[in-house]
Structure formats: structure tokens, C-alpha cells
């Protein structure tokens, strides 16, 4: 029947009619050579306008005539209506949008489209530059979110944005790792280095803002920001590594001067971080020591007075024991950071020597070690700070009619009328006639605690 005949016809697709494998391979080689000969010598500049590219891209997912005759006119109409109704009258509005703003989904959709197009084009360099740029945006958004006062749940939103930032950084890191196998060039690596330094600055500013808060969510976010900053630091060093490798392979787009400058910058950054951590821990120790002395004096005073103040003295003594524990921990932290700082100083000298002799490979390895040491010092500093903050909670001083001024070794502070003492870098103790001892210590400003 007809079906049998059709089956027989289909069976005519047999091997012997296939072309010879040698011809297929040789013809392929000739064809691609001929095609290459028709192309310009220099890398072709894609002159297709971006908008046209977008419509071409759309034709991947739907017939080209549908994209051209239906979707495109509709999209144009939408833009016209939006502009006419002044819903979108500022091209920067979407760019500045933060999570929760009505334009934020449009901003993220645009970014995803840009990423998809970069992937479609197969241009590794554009893709890497885009990801580091998006990481920088997420960092800026996190900073702005935490500065907002009109929106609740800022910490949760900031934490979600940090996750996105980490994802972008992870992507960039992977692309740098695979740079030997892909077409990633020195220009992209320079971009990553530059942007990652800027991201680190933004994240440091975010950390500083979070220092004043002791809520659980903010402390957790602060740790998350620290971890992300470490990742960004690693990516920055990775980018320098790629530049060194490219230079040593003979890539003329990255000169020895470029590489030396990048290495030197990484070196200085790691060294100054280690020094800052050492100084921070030193300052924290000073505060703890001051508090220790005051508690000891007060305990002694209350005991002499006896009676009601004896109960206060007992509470104060317990408080003193806690402070002693923290003080001992702080001393240990000081010793560690001093040791790290000394080691870093030696390594910096060694790295500078290697740079001057042109041993770039060893120099980058030394810088990586310094970076790790610097991270360790920073962690010690943060741990010490959190210990002090948890020990000295922010509370409201309860006043009686006669507030009492207490002299301390670091200065005389009088209780203000509202009973709340805010201190910057000094330990202050205050008592009231009711005997409730409350202490407030708040660390404000930059990570270097100022007296």
C-alpha cells in the first residue's frame, strides 16, 4: 500500500549515498577559508545599531515576521504612551531605582536582557565587564538601601541585594579562572581590577554604617558584607594575576608598567588594611582598659558606702568580671594583629624587591599571601569590636532627680536631661541615686576608632 511505499522511500536514505568523509572535511576547510577571505582583516566592527540587534535577537524566539510586524510596533506604541503620559520622563529614573521602587523590575529586566545578549554574542569580554558593572550596581544599591529611612525591612532587602552581588562576583571569578581557555583579554581584566577596588570602597562604607547597630540582623548583615568584601578582594587579585599572565605570554595590550602599577596598588591596599586592623584593635583595647578601671573604682566606692549600694556593688562586680574576660581577649587580639602587621611589613618589603627586579610571578604570589594575612587581621579586629559591643549594650540611663556626674580617667561627662549618653570613643560610666548602673558605649564613624 501507500504506507509501504513511503517506508521504502524513507529507506533510500542509506549510507552509500552519503558523501565521502574526506570530501566533507576538505570541503569544510576550503569553505571556511573562502569565507574568512571575504571578511575584513581587522575584527569586524558591529555597526548594527543596538536597537536593531535587539529585534534580531527577538527573532531567535519567534518568527522574524512576527517580531517585525507585531511585537515591534506594539513596543514602540508602549514607549510613546509611556512618554506621553509622563510615566517615564527621565531616562535615569530606572537606573537609580532601588528594590521596592516601581521601576526596579524594569531595571533588572533590562540588565538580564543585556546579559542574555552578551551571552548570545559570545563575547566573553563584554560579558565579564557587564557582570562586574552589575556587581558594582548591587553594591551601590545596598549602600543606598541602608541609608533609607522611609522603608521598613531595609536590612532584609540589603541582605537580598548582597546575595545578588555575591552571585555576580562569583561569575566574574569563574570567568577570570577560565581566562586561559576563553578569549578574555587584558582590557576586561583591567576593568575588573578597577571596578572591584570601587566595590570594596562602597562595601567598606556599608560596613561603617552598620557598626553603630547591634541588632542581630545588622550584625549578620555586617558579617555578610565582610565576607563579600573578601570575595571582591580575591577577584581584584585574580584580575591582577590575569594581567601578569597576559603580559608574560607576550600580550602587548598590557605593558610592564601597567602590571607593575596594578601589583603595587594591590600591595598598598593589603598593607594598609593590615595596618588599619592593627590600629583598630589597639583602640578597642584602650576603650576596654578605660572601662575596666572605672568599674573597679565604682565597685570599691559602693562597697565603702554599704547598704543599698552594696547590692549595686555586687552587680557591678559581675559586670567587671565580664569586662576582664573581654579585656583578656582584646589583649590576645592585639598581640595577633601586631604579629600579622609585622609579618605583612616584611612581606611588603620583599614584594617591592621582587617588583623592582621584575619577578612578577613571585611578586603576585607574595601579594596573595599578604592579602590573606590582611583579611585575617581584619577578622580579628571585627571580632574584638563585636565582643565590646555585645558586652556594653545601649541602654537608657534612668535618672532620679539628682543625676550624678562621675569623674573618669578619660574625662568628665554630665548626664544630659533625657538620660541618654552617647559617647564617641570614650568610656563613660554614670550612676543615679537609685543605684542602677548603666553604660553606653557607641562606636561611630570610620573603623579607626577616634578618641
Amino acid at each position: 500500500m501507500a504506507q509501504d511505499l513511503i517506508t521504502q522511500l524513507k529507506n533510500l536514505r542509506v549510507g552509500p549515498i552519503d558523501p565521502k568523509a574526506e570530501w566533507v572535511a576538505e570541503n569544510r576547510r576550503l569553505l571556511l577559508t573562502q569565507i574568512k577571505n571575504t571578511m575584513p582583516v581587522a575584527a569586524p566592527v558591529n555597526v548594527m545599531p543596538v536597537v536593531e540587534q535587539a529585534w534580531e535577537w527577538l527573532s531567535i524566539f519567534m518568527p522574524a515576521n512576527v517580531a517585525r510586524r507585531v511585537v515591534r510596533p506594539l513596543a514602540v506604541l508602549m514607549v510613546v504612551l509611556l512618554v506621553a503620559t509622563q510615566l517615564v520622563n527621565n531616562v535615569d529614573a530606572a537606573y537609580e531605582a532601588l528594590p521596592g521602587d516601581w521601576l526596579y523590575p524594569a531595571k533588572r529586566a533590562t540588565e538580564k536582557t543585556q546579559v542574555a545578549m552578551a551571552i548570545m554574542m559570545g563575547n566573553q569580554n563584554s560579558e565579564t565587564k557587564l557582570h562586574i558593572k552589575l556587581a558594582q550596581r548591587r553594591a551601590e544599591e545596598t549602600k543606598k538601601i541602608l541609608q533609607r529611612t522611609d522603608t521598613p525591612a531595609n536590612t532584609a532587602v540589603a541582605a537580598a541585594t548582597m546575595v545578588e552581588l555575591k552571585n555576580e562576583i562569583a561569575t566574574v571569578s569563574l570567568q577570570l579562572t577560565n581566562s586561559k581557555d576563553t578569549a578574555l583579554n587584558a582590557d576586561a581584566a583591567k576593568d575588573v581590577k578597577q571596578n572591584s577596588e570601587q566595590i570594596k570602597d562602597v562595601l567598606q562604607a556599608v560596613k561603617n554604617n552598620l557598626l553603630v547597630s547591634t541588632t542581630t540582623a545588622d550584625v549578620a548583615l555586617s558579617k555578610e558584607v565582610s565576607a563579600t568584601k573578601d570575595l571582591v578582594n580575591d577577584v581584584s587579585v585574580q584580575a591582577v594575576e590575569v594581567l601578569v599572565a597576559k603580559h608574560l605570554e607576550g600580550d602587548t595590550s598590557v605593558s610592564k608598567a601597567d602590571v607593575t602599577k596594578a601589583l603595587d596598588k594591590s600591595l598598598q591596599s593589603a598593607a594598609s588594611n593590615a595596618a588599619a586592623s592593627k590600629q583598630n584593635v589597639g583602640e578597642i583595647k584602650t576603650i576596654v582598659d578605660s572601662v575596666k578601671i572605672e568599674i573597679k573604682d565604682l565597685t570599691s566606692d559602693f562597697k565603702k558606702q554599704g547598704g543599698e549600694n552594696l547590692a549595686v556593688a555586687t552587680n557591678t562586680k559581675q559586670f567587671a568580671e565580664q569586662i576582664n574576660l573581654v579585656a583578656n581577649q582584646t589583649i590576645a587580639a592585639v598581640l595577633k594583629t601586631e604579629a600579622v602587621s609585622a609579618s605583612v611589613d616584611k612581606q611588603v618589603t620583599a614584594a617591592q624587591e621582587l617588583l623592582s627586579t621584575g619577578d612578577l610571578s613571585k611578586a603576585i604570589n607574595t601579594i596573595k599571601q599578604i592579602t590573606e594575612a590582611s583579611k585575617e587581621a581584619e577578622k580579628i579586629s571585627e571580632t574584638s569590636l563585636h565582643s565590646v559591643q555585645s558586652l556594653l549594650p545601649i541602654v537608657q540611663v534612668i535618672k532620679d532627680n539628682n543625676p550624678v556626674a562621675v569623674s573618669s580617667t578619660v574625662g568628665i561627662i554630665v548626664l544630659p536631661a533625657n538620660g541618654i549618653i552617647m559617647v564617641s570613643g570614650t568610656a563613660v560610666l554614670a550612676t543615679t541615686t537609685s543605684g542602677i548602673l548603666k553604660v553606653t558605649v557607641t562606636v561611630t564613624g570610620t573603623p579607626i576608632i577616634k578618641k
Partner: protein
Amino acid sequence: MPGAKLDENKILYRLRTAPNPDDFGVLYDTYVKQIYRFVYFKVGGHEEAEDIASEVFLKAWHYIQAKKEVKSFRGLLYSIARNCVIDLYRARALRPEVLMGEEIEASDAGNWEKEFQNKDESQAVLTALKKLKQEYKEVITLRYIEELEIHEIAGIIGKSRVGVRVTLHRAIKKLEEMLGRQI
């Protein structure tokens, strides 16, 4: 959209926006055997099939670079192949309709049939196919041997989908008559 079609559309997008010979090489690898077979059935000789198949892919590259719309890359290749075969015979100042059968006789048509494993059945089908008029042979080859969709065949030979179905039905009926089978 099926994965293979989506991948092909991605390659075509890249070829239009940032041409890369390696991307075109992927398309070549996908379709070279089909085009070769199609041309071989038309011209009956390996050498001519090789020449025309090479020409088909080069012309397809130029077509894409001219930014002309490509609804179906496979359809484009078959259209170009068909036209190349017609051009071949026009260049020899011979009528293509008559030539298709005669040319096969003059070339290695004998080898053409001998190359099939199940000679008795295949030989009968091939002999009958060879004697069909060009229009019928073409639609049968494209539909059942090359397994193209009706709308693709319609685009290649310049007929409507209904017209292709009607032609196919008549072609199969004719082939059955020639093979002496019951309808």
C-alpha cells in the same frame, strides 16, 4: 521552541550581527549530508554533487551576510541547491526537465542503483522514481527521503501547502501505478 531550532536561530543571530566562520561551520556540519544527497538524486553523479554542494553553502553564506530574511535555513539550502542544479543544466544549454532523467542515464546511473543493499526492492523503487516527471520526483525526494515539512517544501518549490499536498498525493499514486501495486 525545540532545542535544535533554538540553537540554530542563535547561530543565525550571531552570523547576522557578528559573523564568525566557525559558527557557519556548525551549520555546514548539520546539513552537508542532506544537501549532498538531495543534489546527488538530481544529478546522479558524485563529482557534480560535490561541486554543487560546495557552491550551495558558499551562496548561503553570502545570502546571510546580505542580511536577507531566513525563515528556515534548511529551506534556504534546498532552494539554493535546486536553483544550482537548474543553473547547471542551463549552463549546458539543455532543458532541465528532459535532462534530469537523461543526465542520470548518461552519468553513473547504473552505479546509483547498484549502491543500495536491498537491490530487488530498492532497484524497482529507484527505477520508477527515476522515470517520474521532475515535479513528482522532487516532492517525493524532499518529503520522504529528506523528510522536510510541507511548509518547507512549499517554500522551496514555490507552491502553496495545499498544492504540495496535492502533488505529493498524485506523485505517490503514480509511483504505485508504475510499481504495479494496488492503490
